[in-house]
Each structure stands twice: as structure tokens, then as C-alpha cells.
């Protein structure tokens, strides 16, 4: 059976603790950055930069960290997604933490 990567990647999360928000059969993005973070992660895994499950492990870990955090920050699924994506990108050597920080500082100016 021919299965698209995008389909199998998202379907693999269904029923698990890291399933993305969705309504009426479609994904829900509250803003463009959430959509961008989602699309970048899927594209990088599809293109073989890392295994989808490697990213998911980091996502599940980020969600766990948030659950244990005592600071009471409100829940944002895609914030955890972004944290997991940054960690995965660094781990597989696509970018260094310094490059990401520098780029972020640049954007803040």
C-alpha cells in the first residue's frame, strides 16, 4: 500500500500522548509559527535528516518536562513541539545552539 510520509507520520501519533490538536478531521494551528514548526519538522524527517520517532521522543520528553514544571505556565502544544524540534535539529547536526541563538538575537533587533 502506497502511504504518504505525511500521513503515516501524523497517524503514528494518534491515540498517543503527543497527538497534535485537531478538529473536524483537520489540524488546528492557532498561528503561522505553529504551522511553520509543524511543516519544518515533517519536511526534515521526510527528507531523512532524522527519524520521525527521534523527534517524537523529544516531543514526548518536552511534554513531560512541562507537566513536571512547577511554574504554572499555560499549556501550548506547539511550544513543546518547537522545543523538541530545536533539540532534534541540534542533535542531528543541522544547526548548533549558537547559530540558533544568534539568529534569534538578530530577529529581536
Amino acid at each position, binding site marked *: *500500500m*502506497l*502511504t*504518504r510520509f*505525511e*500521513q503515516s507520520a*501524523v*497517524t503514528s501519533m*494518534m*491515540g498517543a500522548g503527543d*497527538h497534535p490538536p*485537531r478538529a*473536524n*478531521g*483537520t*489540524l488546528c494551528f492557532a*498561528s*503561522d*509559527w*505553529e*504551522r*511553520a*514548526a*509543524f*511543516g*519544518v519538522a*515533517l*519536511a*526534515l524527517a*521526510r527528507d531523512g*535528516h532524522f527519524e520521525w520517532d527521534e523527534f517524537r521522543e523529544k516531543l514526548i520528553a518536552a511534554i513531560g518536562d512541562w507537566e513536571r514544571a512547577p*511554574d504554572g*505556565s*499555560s499549556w*501550548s502544544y*506547539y*511550544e513543546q513541539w*518547537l*522545543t523538541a*524540534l*530545536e533539540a532534534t*535539529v541540534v542533535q542531528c547536526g*543541522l*544547526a548548533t*545552539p549558537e*547559530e*540558533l*541563538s544568534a*539568529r*534569534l538575537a*538578530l*530577529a*529581536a533587533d
Partner: protein
Amino acid sequence: MTDRFHHPSDREARSAARAKALESLLIEKGIITDRTVDTVLKVFETKMGPFNGAKIVARAWADPAFKRRLVEDTPAAIAEMAGMNDLPAGMAGAEGEHMRAVANGEGVHNLVICTLCSCYPWPVLGLPPYWYKDPTFRSRAAREPRAVLKEFGLDVPETVEVRIWDSSAQIRWFVVPERPAGTDGMSETELAALVTPEAMMGVAVSKAG
């Protein structure tokens, strides 16, 4: 990268900046392009999703002969629509071969479940709701479908038979709900807007407006 921002709008702005920084860095390195995100999302937003199922159901409502063909040979009927560019190409491909439509009406209400796995006709229904993979939903729906449907707000009269279809890797079922009353003269586009994924799973019915 791990600062906690307590003001919601600061947090939101910070996240937006992090996502932008990551994406632009990867574009600059030539790992992705500025079209990558849109290309990935297109799969979910325009190619594969519940809007396809809604178009198929609307065609079946508008054209009884098509409805018969859809129930008798679902892949052929889907291929027919794809051939007229009314559905994206690929719908009638390897995935479409496994799809089977069942029609509500004439004393029958159909309900689709999956007791073995997460088999779900994604190209026509989109992403499954959280309860679809819940073991309690699956086993209860198989055992006492009327009670489960009532919890969804759907009271199926005793005179109407409830048929359960268990999706599998071989066959992925979807329901053609009954055309609602008061929709005479509506275009297929207007009709498609009345079709929800829940109705195509059989846990809801379609209503006019």
C-alpha cells in the same frame, strides 16, 4: 532558548521568533526552501482530508446513479471523480483501493469502528478524533452501538437497524449519510458544506444549515 515568559503575548512573540529563526536558518543553509512548509501543509489542507469525503457524499446526494456506483464499487466511483478533476489525483490510487462506502437510509444506520488498529480512511475523512482509537469506544460501540450513539446525541429509532463496520488494513469503511430534508436545489458545493467527518463515521447525521 528556554526562558519562561509569563505574559502570554510575550510568550507568543517569543515562540514566533524562535520558529522564524529556525526556519530562516535552515533556508539559508539550503536544507529547506521558503516553500517547504506550504508544500507539507498542502497535503493536509487541500489534498487529503475530510473535504474529499464531503465532495464524494455531495455528489452521491445530487446523483442517485453515482451513489449506486459508489456503494457497489467505491474505488471506481472515486476514480471517476478524480478523472474529472473533482478530487485530487492519488485518491483513487493504492489507498483508494481499500475504501468502501456504505449508505444510510431505508431503515439502516451505519457506524464505522476499528477494533484492531488505527485503520482510518484518512484521504476522505482527515485525521481521526481522539476517541476513535480509544479502546473503550471501540469495544462499547461494537457491543452496544445504540447506547454509544445516544451519547453522541444521536437517537436511532428501534425500527432502524444499526450496522457496524469494522475497518481493517484491507477495507476502510466510510458512511454516506442521508441527504437532509430542506436541501432541494442546493449545489454540490453547498451540499458538501453540510457533510462532517462525524457523519461519515456514522456518529452523527447531516443537517441542513
